[in-house]
């Protein structure tokens, strides 16, 4: 148990003495709670295991069993006392923070994205389905366009009503028959509502019409279903088929052969034409190098990084100064009159939904009808000029962030015994000296991690930029990088705007951003005394 002992070694405090008055005794209530909690864990495990067993997912069952066993071991064994306190939070942390991050890291070395989503077989099925042509005896379907999830971003699904009335859901993987009870349909066979899918409105269909025209449902060997207009679909014969012997796709109409390029994950013809549907392959560090070596992005990288650091550091400094200043103003020996009211009013900006307030601030900075210009009687294009835009964003972000710092500083100030400062004053220190040399250092121990995390949060503060300037203003000579772009908004535009989603590339930039932020944070933590706290 040596390493699990409670230390009494804080600044010369006496080491814990042996238990003189008796061994620890667990109370009856404690025992009941413990048994109850473990029983609940077991019940949850059984509940979680049933669907997994039904689907014969033995890996899943194994994971559930292992986690449950770990929980029981930790709480029933008298050893590993710290783990008893850390386990619940840590399990959740691993499942919903660490695993997604690891997944992103593993994605960063692939070409995952639009056109490179699935494996090679899926790509072949999609190519074959896409190439189908209508023959005189092609079966016809009544088509309802739907999406799996949000109407504008969810995967497309064709809801197909066959001549005999059967309804299928067709996605990129093939057809699945639907239960008629889950559907509402018109006499024409059009589906009005289907459980689990979002039926698109005409406006939404128009928005995604290119995508719908390119969409095909593979239905088996060399056949597929494509749309013909917006309410009909047909099943036809593929003109492009995969030949195993040459690892290539042959177009029976034009006679062109597309050979598989297994390094880049796509089929390419001899004259360099590339088929739209590729598959996911490992591309090593190409995604990382692209950001630096690509002349289009490399030039902007450093200037964006500089503003990004300035934005995060500036925001952190401003909210810290304002928040701590206000907390100090109200930290008087005798309670300040009306301080409850002040607290409530000052914390109000933090209570307002931040995304809504960002949109509101953008409108207030509007040149023509914005509140700022109207009240001040000016005609300044605040968000149209690089430096006023940067200043405005810092102002908005300070408004949004200072109440948090104010609350935290209030809490931290209360944890510092007033006697320390009083002692310094008695020893002849002035008010400022006592604050500077006694209160502030103690405060910084508690505040540095908060400041570091504020810095890190703002380094990637997507909303603050996207909802106000969207990265702009853009100079005519570089339309890709705006004056207020952060790395994350810039990446977002590069990776998801224009030529479709490029998750692999975006993941690589995420990893890069993470490394930069983590490095900067570690340096600043090291500069402060916070890490000594950790080591103590």
């Amino acid at each position, binding site marked *: 148990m040596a390493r*699990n002992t*409670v230390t009494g070694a804080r600044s010369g405090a006496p080491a814990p003495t042996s238990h003189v008055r008796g*061994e620890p005794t667990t109370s009856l209530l404690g025992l009941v709670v413990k048994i109850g909690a473990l029983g609940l864990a077991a019940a949850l495990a059984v509940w979680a295991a049933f669907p997994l067993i039904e689907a014969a997912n033995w890996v899943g069952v194994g994971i559930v069993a292992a986690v449950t066993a770990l929980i029981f071991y930790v709480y029933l064994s008298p050893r590993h006392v710290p783990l008893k306190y850390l386990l619940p*939070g840590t399990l959740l942390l691993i499942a*919903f923070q660490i695993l997604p991050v690891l997944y992103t890291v593993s994605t960063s070395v692939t070409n995952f994205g639009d056109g490179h989503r699935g494996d090679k077989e899926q790509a072949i099925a999609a190519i074959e389905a896409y190439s189908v042509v209508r023959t005189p005896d092609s079966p016809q379907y009544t088509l309802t366009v739907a999406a799996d999830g949000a109407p504008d971003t969810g995967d497309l699904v064709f809801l197909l009503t066959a001549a005999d009335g059967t309804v299928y859901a067709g996605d990129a993987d093939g057809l699945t028959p639907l239960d008629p009870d889950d559907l509402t349909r018109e006499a024409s066979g059009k589906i009005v509502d289907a459980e689990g899918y979002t039926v698109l409105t005409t406006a939404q269909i128009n928005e995604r019409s290119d995508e719908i025209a390119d969409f095909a449902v593979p239905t088996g060997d060399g056949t597929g279903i494509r749309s013909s207009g917006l309410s009909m679909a047909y099943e036809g014969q593929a003109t492009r088929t995969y030949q195993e012997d040459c690892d290539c796709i042959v177009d029976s109409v034009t006679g062109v052969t597309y050979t598989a390029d297994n390094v880049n994950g796509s089929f390419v013809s001899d004259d360099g034409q590339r088929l739209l549907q590729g598959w996911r392959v490992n591309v090593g560090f190409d995604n990382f190098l692209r950001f630096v070596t690509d002349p289009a992005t490399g030039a902007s990288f450093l200037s964006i990084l500089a503003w990004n650091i300035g934005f995060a550091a500036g925001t952190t400094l401003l909210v810290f100064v304002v928040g701590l*200043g206000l907390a100090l103003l109200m930290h008087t020996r005798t309670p300040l009159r009306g301080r409850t009211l002040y607290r409530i009013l000052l914390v109000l900006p933090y209570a307002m939904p931040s995304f809504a307030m960002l949109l509101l601030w953008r409108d207030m900075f509007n040149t023509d009808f914005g509140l700022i210009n109207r009240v001040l009687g000016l005609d300044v294009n605040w968000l149209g000029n690089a430096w006023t835009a940067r200043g405005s964003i810092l102002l908005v972000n300070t408004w949004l962030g200072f109440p948090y710092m104010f*609350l935290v500083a209030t809490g931290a100030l*209360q944890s510092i015994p007033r006697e320390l400062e009083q002692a310094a004053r008695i020893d002849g220190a002035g008010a400022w000296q006592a604050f500077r040399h006694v209160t502030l250092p103690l405060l910084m121990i508690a505040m540095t991690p908060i400041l570091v995390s504020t810095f890190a949060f703002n380094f990637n503060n997507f909303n603050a930029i996207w909802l106000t300037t969207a990265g702009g203003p853009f100079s005519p000579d570089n339309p890709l990088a705006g004056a207020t772009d952060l790395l994350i908004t810039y990446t977002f535009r590069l990776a998801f705007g224009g030529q479709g989603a490029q998750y692999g590339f975006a993941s690589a930039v995420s990893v890069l*951003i993470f490394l930069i932020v983590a490095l900067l944070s570690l340096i600043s933590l090291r500069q402060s005394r916070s890490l000594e706290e950790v080591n103590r």
Partner: protein
Amino acid sequence: MTAPVYRDRPFLRWLRDNSWRHLLLWCAVAFALFPILFVISAALNPLGTLSSSHLVPTGASLDNARELFATTPFGAWYVNSIVLAVCNAAVTVFLSALAAYAFSRFRFTGRRIGLLGILLIQMFPQFLAIVAIYLMFATVTDYWPPIGFDTRWGLLLVYLGGALSVNTWLMKGFFDTIPMELDESAKVDGATHAQAFFRIMLPLVTPVLAIVGLLVFINTINEFLLATVFLRDPEAKTVALGLYSLVADERNANFGLFAVGTLLIALPTMAVFWFLQRYIVEGLTSGAVKG
């Protein structure tokens, strides 16, 4: 931090000590409140458009509020937001306090890595981790629909993944200020580590629990990115999502509704703050530290 000058008369002393504080605080309050005043005025504006809204209310009409409840499932959004925020705040405070106790009172292998790790993992840009969370929950929805997409409980689970965060550092810092002698003497008297935690520590650290609870509550109400991925059914949305969908296309026309919703969702946050105020203000430690 001017010291009281005792030879002055009481009124002058008050003036010297506090009037400048009040002056500065009034400036800060004005800065904090003027955008909110604009929202209030827009919410009361009978025309309900952005371009017709001014800083000072031009009218007082409840048309916007009436229309908000008539045309959108705002009530359902509201309940969703509150349930999520309360549950997340309560469980996060508990999990985080447990971890902070371990980090503050025990020395064990992995302590340093653990503390640094929970701080660093938060720095990963979240909008891509969402791709992974989406794929993960597509599977979860197949196996366990009650915690899958369009449910509060699935979203709550993901939020709880962030329970150990900078908040744990905040709590640990506060725990460190409670003298070790207090829980040690309890142990000498035969208390287990759990009893020392629940009976001695928790009552003493109430202020920091209150602050963390408030912060988590507010963050959950405002959370947007994860909720967009999770809650696709109009009825299952949170207020943040619902309001965004209101102004995504037609901000000018729906601005009045948007302003009403913004104000309504700020109310519970104010209520929680008011309720926790005494814990934050009282600062229970000042008594304990002396003892």
